[in-house]
């Protein structure tokens, strides 16, 4: 048993945190996160050069990481600064491409930006209800349907789309240039896209893709969990500082016992969240990965909401303002839960394990 990071991962974490701290102060981050194209192509390339994309890819697929703890280290750092770069898409694409044995050089070096299209408006979290269809035509394929919430889709070169081929789940590769991609900023910053597929040409990546899609979802959920822990810790640090410095009725508000106890409860939930990320990272790739990671995402979804809402409440008005970093951290913490399966969806997956 060992809860220390390996030296390599510790170095990766330090490098990334230093880079992000320098490059993504909250004003810069907000400008990038809310002004089209909702990220920085330049910083994306710099981070690829630092090896961040490569850290998300396994060695057999040409990267130098791709294990659970690589993912958690990277996304926790991204979460701390609310970095809007589209690494989630790269990570999930890498899992799908890996399952297909496809080359990932351009993903590792950052030259091609990938996104994945899984969600649909009436099947936001459960791929079994996918309605997008693929049709074979002369050795190639066309897709019809609509994908919502394609994270990073607004700047993706290639989008890997989940669609049903003859009733079975497959993964198809769509060139963004060939499709109707409607990009948008998310309310918590960074970009996503709605993907409208109308006889859109596509290449087959994988058929019978259920396991690969689940693995991509597992990896994506783990990433979001780690990102949440980073954002929760950043929020907690600002809150604690505020409690110590802000005075009301002549005393630091941190002297009010009610705020003390509520902050202790946040600390507790953050520790529990951190534990869940460790457990989820360790489980990635195992047989029980889906269950363990669903558990993590449920707990962290609850904790993130508590941290976000309590941080706003305890700050009072100031955290209601755009100018104050906590408002953006809180938005991210709340909206994270909407991505790739919310607390209820993940809880239901755990509940379903009882019936069997």
């Amino acid at each position, binding site marked *: 048993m060992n809860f220390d990071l390996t030296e390599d991962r510790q170095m990766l974490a330090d490098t990334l945190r230093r880079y992000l701290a320098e490059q993504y102060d909250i004003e810069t981050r907000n400008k990038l996160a*809310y002004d*089209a194209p909702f990220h920085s192509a330049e910083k994306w390339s710099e981070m690829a050069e630092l090896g961040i994309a490569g850290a998300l890819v396994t060695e057999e697929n040409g990267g130098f990481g791709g294990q659970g703890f690589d993912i958690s280290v990277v996304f926790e750092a991204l979460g701390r600064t609310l970095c809007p770069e589209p690494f989630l898409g790269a990570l999930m694409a890498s899992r799908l491409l890996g399952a297909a044995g496809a080359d990932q050089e351009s993903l590792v070096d950052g030259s091609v930006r990938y996104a994945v299209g899984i*969600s649909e*408006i*009436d*099947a*936001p*979290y*459960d791929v*079994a*209800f996918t309605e997008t269809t693929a049709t074979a035509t002369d050795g190639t394929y066309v897709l019809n349907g609509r994908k*919502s*919430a394609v994270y990073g889709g*607004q700047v993706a070169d290639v989008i890997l789309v989940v669609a049903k081929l003859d009733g079975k789940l497959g993964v198809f590769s769509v060139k963004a240039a060939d499709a109707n991609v*409607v*990009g*948008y*900023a*998310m*309310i*918590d910053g960074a970009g*996503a896209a*709605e993907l*409208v597929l109308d006889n859109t040409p596509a290449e087959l990546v994988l058929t019978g893709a259920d396991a690969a899609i689940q693995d991509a979802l597992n990896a994506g959920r783990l990433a979001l969990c780690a990102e949440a822990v980073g954002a929760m810790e950043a929020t907690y640090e600002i809150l604690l500082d505020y409690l110590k410095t802000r*005075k*009301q*009725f*002549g005393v630091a508000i941190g002297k*009010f016992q*009610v*705020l003390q106890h509520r902050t202790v409860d946040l600390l507790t939930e953050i520790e529990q969240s951190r534990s869940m990320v460790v457990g989820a990272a360790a489980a990635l790739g195992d047989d029980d990965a889906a269950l363990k990671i669903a558990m993590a995402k449920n707990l962290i979804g609850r904790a993130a909401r508590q941290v976000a*809402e309590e941080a*706003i*409440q305890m700050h*009072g*008005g100031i*955290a*209601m*303002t*755009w*100018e104050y970093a906590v*408002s953006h951290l*809180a*938005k991210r913490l*709340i*909206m994270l*839960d*909407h*991505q790739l399966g*919310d607390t*209820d*969806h993940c*809880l*239901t997956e755990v509940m379903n394990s009882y019936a069997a």
Partner: protein
Amino acid sequence: MDLTYSDAELAFQQEVRDFFEANLPMHISDAVRSGAEMTGELYQEYHRILSAKGWLATTWPKEYGGPGWTPVERHIFDVESSRYNAPRIVPFGLAMLGPVIQKFGNDRQKAEVLPRILSAEDWWCQGYSEPGAGSDLASLKTRADRDGDHYVVNGQKTWTTLGQYANKIFCLVRTKFDGKPQEGISFLLIDLDTPGIEMRPIRLIEGGHEVNEVFFTDVRVPVENLVGEENLGWTIAKFLLTHERTGIAGVGISMQALEELKALGRSVKRNGKPLIEDPLFAARVARVEIDLEAMKITNLRMLFQAQKQGHPGPETSILKIKGTQINQEIRDLARRALGPVAAPFPGHVTDGNLVLSPPDSQNNAARYFNNRKTSIFGGSNEIQRNILTKTMLEL
């Protein structure tokens, strides 16, 4: 015990419904339903419609030109106006300054100020909070120094809601600098056209412009704009804090929001079925519906009590706490119901014509974030609990 409306109250309810059916423009109710940020024009249009009917000053007695409604009638108006997706009435002139002038103002002030509120000519905003003061009004620093027959005002106010549409502001200012901090505060009416006033927007968490900072630099205010006596401001502030606000529980708004939530739950799908049939979602909806059902009666009980005693009791803090919890929970569920399509930031979609989410839901996330304010502003729920500790628990 009798929970039903009297015949007269039922007739009034019908009158209110008929009025909204006939007079509330669709473009206003559409804006309210969608949760989009309201413009000053829409507010004013609505205010004028009510003013024409004599229903703008819902809490004013007849002698001052109000409709003279009972608490129950005010409650009925509240619920119906939410049901029809009418905007809220901007409260600063009508629910706050009006009663203050009626109780503390002199005859000249009554004659000058009240009619222009009634007619929706003046839009008042509030200068209470200051940076660093928050709920702690006694520590305010904005000063008014006497200079002949003027006060010279210097300082800064913040959280001035909808101040960008206002032409007047009422302020708490410090007029005495020794003794107990509460004793040196005065209540001053200020024309926003006066030189030396600058209003700056504060952008809120969800991106909207709803509150402002107001800076005062050597602003000269005639002495006759003082309400009540000099250094009586604390008394007025306390009067306002405990002044009856029928709508403090937000029952009408929450009822309407719950109906819309249920409709959304029927239209959105999860795992191939309507979301409302998902037991975890339905359980949350049911729980908050039950809490709201209780709150409706709690609200009526306290209205009844207030009507009997002639003034509201400290229990109104209960209405504030529980009312905001219920409303925030409904807004939370409306956000969650959308899943990933709650994400798009309104106004930041490259193709504005593409519909990304179910009707009237595109602001659900923004609305949830904006609504976090309700448990903070106007006396945070922590302050309300402190008040109840003193008044009801006597601890």
